[in-house]
């Protein structure tokens, strides 16, 4: 974290110089951390390419669910999900457990942004603030 600060600061001022792009700094955009976390916490089920598994596990690649349920995604990762659910017209009905170890708000943000921008996905990026807000809605925010 410490090490990152200075380059980030430089990047940030560059962005400001570039004119109006300073908004970028509000986004958590650590693709790498997101990829690692995805590999550890999600890929056994959803597959390394987000492909899912037949009608057992829904895909994340190209999933309309991500767009339609954007406001629920942070809580879904925190709390898990069960019961019938429709993704790209296919019905699923299995159990997704809550994340297997505690993930901070910013880690969830990084995972979601990895999902939003991988395998051809071009979803809207999440800010940490947005994720924390969603998580407060289900009593799951830790403010970190």
């Amino acid at each position, binding site marked *: 974290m410490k090490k990152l600060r200075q380059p980030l600061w430089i990047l940030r001022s560059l962005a400001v110089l570039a004119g109006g792009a300073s908004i970028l700094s509000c986004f958590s955009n650590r693709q790498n951390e997101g990829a690692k976390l995805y590999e550890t916490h999600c890929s*056994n089920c959803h*597959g390394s390419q987000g492909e899912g*598994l*037949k009608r*057992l596990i829904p895909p994340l690649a190209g999933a309309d669910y991500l767009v339609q349920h954007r406001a629920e995604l942070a809580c879904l990762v925190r709390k898990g999900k069960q019961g019938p659910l429709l993704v790209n017209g296919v019905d699923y009905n299995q159990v997704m457990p809550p994340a*297997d170890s505690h993930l901070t708000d910013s880690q969830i943000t990084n995972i979601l942004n990895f999902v939003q921008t991988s395998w051809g996905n071009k979803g809207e990026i999440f800010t940490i603030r947005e994720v924390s807000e969603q998580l407060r809605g289900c009593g799951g925010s830790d403010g970190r």
Partner: protein
Amino acid sequence: MMLSSFRRALHVGLLALGSAVALTACSDKTEESQVLPYIGERDVRPRADGGPADTIFAAIPSFTLTNQDGQTITNQTFAGKVYVADFFFATCPSICPKMQSEMLRVYEQFKGNPKVLFLSHTIDPAHDSIPVLRDYAQRLGIQDASRWHFATAPHDTIFGLARRYMTAAQKDGGVPGGYAHSGTFALIDSERHIRGVYDGMVKEEVDRLIQELPLLLKEEAAKQPKAQ
């Protein structure tokens, strides 16, 4: 008679080769490596008549299970076939989806060959009723229960069998899902012997299973009298 003592000699020879084969693994292209080893404990029993000692290889014990169609399956179901076995449960939060997707890859390779069957045992029989197993199988795309059995039995039966298939499985409140188990795939020949053990969580290991299975089929074809 002749055949069986020849086979016995072959088995004993294999014993000696066993370690060499294990060491050279799949890169070795010599004749020996073309026959799969016998895996598990073995016992050498002197014969009463003073003849050459019998080598008893570890074998899968007799079992009676029920599959996703509610049909009883036993060792007889697998007679004259080879099969791949594993242990899973429908609500498994950790390794099962990955494992079963790797198993599916093996199934896809051999689904055209009725001599190759698949057997997935649930280690959570309390939850995985027959309808749950059927739903699971169908969601995985397996419509034909006679090729890939998703089987249940009383808890103790399953856990006893898991050990024999070299899968570690136990109830463990401390892990997600409540059961700790390993993702072993065991390859069983028509005489109930384990001929290969693979880590179903590792793609390269599963690739090895896909390569080795035809070797076993070749061996089986050679020892069975040609069907008319």
